[in-house]
């Protein structure tokens, strides 16, 4: 009787969840983290306001995004990062092509770049203040220095990976240096360059924003440190969330641009 009363489902449907197990686990993790956060905020275990409630953070996020002044600061930071990326990226590209194009240059100068690359660039900030002042110039310089190394090293690596046949084709057509760079080198090494720019953008963002937190009266970095000074924790969390979204979004955008190239090629 018990056998007869059992609801027998088709084998395929019996175990099927409404969502994929990976998605379900992701949702569960997010919900658990948010619930823990809210519980800690409500319990008062940590100092008051260090962990504000999610409602307060959401409210601060909406307030920040509806404030015109925030967009002025955001524009300033974007401007600084954009100029830094252009200066650091182009100079890195030129140096990378020069290093990658000659074995002698590579052996003579690449170790200097390779070993200087991982040093903490923020320590150059006092020097940049002396050279370019306390305004946006020193922040641009910080971003440009940070961006220069990954772009140069990636471009040098990319130069060495170029198919020798392509270079011989360019030379057999008697292409001059400019034509070699624009017609052969750059198209052939666009993937390492995109990778370099991607890395360069990340570090330029860090360099510029850290410089803004240290000494500035404008930009998102300044807003973050101002929120810290005023102990406005919800606003600080909202600004950090916005920063992370911008950083991850920009990284994904450049990555996708690199991916689109592939689609066009094949």
């Amino acid at each position, binding site marked *: 009787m018990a056998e007869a009363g059992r609801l027998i489902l088709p084998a395929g449907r019996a175990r099927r969840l409404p969502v994929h197990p990976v998605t379900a686990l992701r949702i569960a993790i997010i919900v658990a983290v948010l619930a823990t956060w809210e519980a800690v905020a409500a319990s008062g275990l940590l100092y008051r306001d260090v962990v504000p409630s999610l409602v307060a953070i959401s409210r601060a996020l909406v307030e920040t995004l509806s404030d015109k002044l925030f967009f002025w600061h955001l524009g300033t930071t974007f401007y600084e990062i954009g100029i830094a990326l252009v200066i650091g990226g182009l100079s890195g590209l030129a140096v990378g092509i020069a290093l990658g194009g000659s074995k002698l240059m590579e052996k003579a100068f690449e170790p200097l770049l390779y070993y200087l690359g991982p040093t*903490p660039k923020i320590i150059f900030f006092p020097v940049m203040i002396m050279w370019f002042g306390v305004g946006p110039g020193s922040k641009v310089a910080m971003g440009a220095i940070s961006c220069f190394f990954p772009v140069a090293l990636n471009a040098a690596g990319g130069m060495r990976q170029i198919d020798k046949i392509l270079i011989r084709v360019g030379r057999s057509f008697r292409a001059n240096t400019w034509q070699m760079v624009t017609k052969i080198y750059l198209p052939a090494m666009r993937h390492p360059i995109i990778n370099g720019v991607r890395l360069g953008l990340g570090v330029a963002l860090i360099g510029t924003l850290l410089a803004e937190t240290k000494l500035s009266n404008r930009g998102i970095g300044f807003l973050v440190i101002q929120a810290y000074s005023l102990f406005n924790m919800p606003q600080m969390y909202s600004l950090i969330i916005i920063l992370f979204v911008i950083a991850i979004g920009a990284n994904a955008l450049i990555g996708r641009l690199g991916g689109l190239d592939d689609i066009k090629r094949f």
Partner: protein
Amino acid sequence: MSTATLAKNRWLPIALGLGSLVAVIVLVEALIRLGWINRFIVPMPSEIFLAFPRVVREEDVVSRFLLTAGEAFSASILVTLFGVAGGVLLHQFRLLRQATETWVAAMAAAPLVLIYPLYLVIFGRSATTIVMMGFTAGLAPTVLKTLEGLSSTRRVLINVGRSFNLTRSQQFWKILFPAALPTIFVGLRLGLIFALINIVGVEFLINFGGLGQLINELAERYDLAGTYASICFVILVSVCVFVLTERLERWLRPVD
């Protein structure tokens, strides 16, 4: 003689690189002496060179170096413990790995150092903030490299373990972990470098601790030669750490 032939010489490229560096330093010295570069913005390289012993003596560089090294050591212990454990955890639980590996990769690429004001609030202006910042920066690459090392263990090694009827624990300690060790060390090296960069950076930003604070203090005193000398010192230290860890990694890497 072509540049390719010159590059084959062992000493010539090194001489060219170092010679160019010396030439730039001499040129800057000459331009400052001629008044073409303002000496109140860029001090003479000879002054910077002479400031080295003064900075080492008066600013207690040795104890500052030891303080930064101690912070980096504490952060690297945390990175090793939690990073390797995290990688092993993700390797053992396939579903957890599928759900979170992209998050860990995003964390590795995210500008985590920007949350230092948050750590200042939580841990205060103390060495804990600096150590935790280093730990946060070094964690993700270590987790990812541990996972990569364990996942790329050669099938034949795993099969050898199975043929010996090894238990799950024996399989891990005798086969998987030793095979993954070189890749795990690459992750630890990356983690240590990330941690060190962030530690010195945060020391500078919050004006607390060892070498990073030294640069900030000298800059605030407008001791130009001292500031440049301390920057050179920090560069030297980070280059030494980088070279040392690179050598260790090569030593650990199995011969193909």
